[in-house]
């Protein structure tokens, strides 16, 4: 137990430099942007003295290192800044939008997992059989489907004719919210499915030839119990790894899906913020998305350590 705890703690500590790097990158990237942020805040017709005043308030007149230190301190105290367009706190906005994005992305990943396992198992059962070929063909096809297009096709051919799902927005109440998530989450699931199926199929086929599976078979394990107790259990760590990678990708799928379905999530917020040139807002979104991915990988590492003791010892 203590070993497990120490592992999580070590992982958490190793994230600190990464988070500092993310903040630095976010700050440097946005300072590449054309135009003077202070001029943007003050407005195009403001006198130069006012622009200088704003720059001082925003700390833009200080050296980069100092700005970075101030920025890190500010974010560490939980303040992501203030939108220059609406004057709203970036943190508040993020907190409002986070649930939608998390719900769409996690539901999408869950759906993808639910589809991946039976498909991959079916494909690996008889390699190069008709089922395997069909599933591999579907996987190849799935990679090339543009996410935004599946979303629009879903609206046009499912949401509009049946009237089961809202065409845009999340509606009122928990029931509407859940119904509004069905199509977006399905689209996200489709967009991340193919690599997961391919990866699990390959793992299952390798396990088919593993010595311990052969041994289990000699001992009389067959069919379902062989699959569950020996093959699937050992297929979990690589599945976690590919799922984590695809879940990171699902976050972008969520951006596209939120825009297509008009869902008020982080992705739509980011797109709107960047089209209105709202620097602090964009910066805040970038950090939130990056932190989400970092946390995602942390969860994957911890899960891997939980199911596979070897990871705890070597890492």
């Amino acid at each position, binding site marked *: 137990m203590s070993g497990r705890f120490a592992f999580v703690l070590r992982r958490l500590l190793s994230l600190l430099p990464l988070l500092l790097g993310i903040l630095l990158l976010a700050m440097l990237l946005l300072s590449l942007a054309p135009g003077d942020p202070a001029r943007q805040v003050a407005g195009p017709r403001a006198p130069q003295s006012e622009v200088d005043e704003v720059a001082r308030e925003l700390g833009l007149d200080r050296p980069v290192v100092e700005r970075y230190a101030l920025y890190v301190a500010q974010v560490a105290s939980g303040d992501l800044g203030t939108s220059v367009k609406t004057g709203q706190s970036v943190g508040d906005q993020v907190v409002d939008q986070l649930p939608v994005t998390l719900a769409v992305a996690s539901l999408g990943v869950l759906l993808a997992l639910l589809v991946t396992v039976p498909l991959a198992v079916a494909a690996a059962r008889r390699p190069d059989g008709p089922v395997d070929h069909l599933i591999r063909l579907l996987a190849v096809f799935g990679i090339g489907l543009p996410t935004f297009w599946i979303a629009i096709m879903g*609206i046009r051919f499912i949401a509009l004719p049946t009237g089961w799902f809202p065409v845009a927005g999340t509606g009122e109440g928990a029931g509407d919210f859940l119904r509004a998530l069905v199509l977006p989450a399905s689209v996200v699931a489709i967009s*991340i499915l193919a690599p997961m199926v391919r990866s699990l199929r390959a793992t299952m086929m390798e396990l088919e030839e593993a010595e311990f599976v052969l041994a289990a078979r000699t001992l009389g394990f067959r069919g379902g119990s062989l699959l569950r107790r020996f093959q699937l259990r050992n297929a979990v760590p690589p599945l976690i790894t590919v799922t984590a990678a695809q879940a990171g990708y699902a976050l972008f799928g969520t951006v596209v899906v939120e825009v297509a379905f008009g869902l008020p999530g982080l992705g739509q917020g980011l797109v709107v913020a960047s089209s209105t040139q709202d620097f602090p807002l964009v910066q805040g979104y970038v950090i939130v998305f990056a932190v989400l991915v970092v946390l995602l990988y942390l969860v994957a590492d911890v899960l891997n350590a939980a199911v596979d003791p070897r990871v705890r010892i070597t890492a």
Partner: protein
Amino acid sequence: MSTVSTSASPLGAIGGATETSRAARPRSRRAARIKLVVGGVIVATYVVLALLAPWLTSHDPTDQDILNALQAPSATHPLGTDEAGRDELARLLYAARIDLPIAFLVTVLPCLLGTALGVVCGYLGGWFDALVMRVSDLLQAFPTYILMIVLVFSLGHGVRSLLIAFTVVGWVVYARLVRAEVLRIREAGYITAARTAGFGTPRIIARHVLPNTLRQTLIYLTSDLVFAVTALAAFSFLGFGIQQPTPEWGAMTAAAQPYMTTNMSLTVLPGLVITVLALGFALLGDGLQDRKGNR
């Protein structure tokens, strides 16, 4: 981080080494050939259509005709007109002249940069290698697309920003791929032989190391084209990429979304065109991967 971040490529497990361990089977060799042929025919068709666009339609893809907006297919407009009265067929065809070369560029530029860095890192090692690998760790910790959106936001819309954004994000996978190959090759007998023969490092890298990393890179590059085609369109759909009125499939879809009930084909066709092209590249990549697995 180690277990996850290395596989966090945009395409996840595509072209991953996991699928190569299967023994050769005549059936999958035939399947590989079919994939390569079908994929090749699809991609070649797109290239030909893009080249011949001016001869296949007499319309200018950006000519507006507001009075004839959203027309149904007719003799003059075989696929109808879009929301600004532009000929849909002409736009679909001319978009190939935008999407294809840009998709190609946003794949090849990261490949070149990544290969160069990968070779230097793998062959020379040392502090430069450590630095490049740490930078790539940091880049991979970022969600790829968010990083690209930020870059495009910071650099302003347009093709130049797209090229930079895709290159900054995309080189990592190539660098890691090539670096790993180089590390494997570096100790091979023929490299030692070349060194013993007195060849300099640049010559050994160019003549003996690089050619041996090419196949793996090429397979990944082909799969990466799938990502490039769909990602480019997605960026334009979100309003970050190529802007209207320039014909581009993703931007066309976004512009037509409000009219999807009345003029369905305006949203269906561009996506279909992207899907088939992406399928072509995917089949090529898959065929190459299968064939390699059988060697």
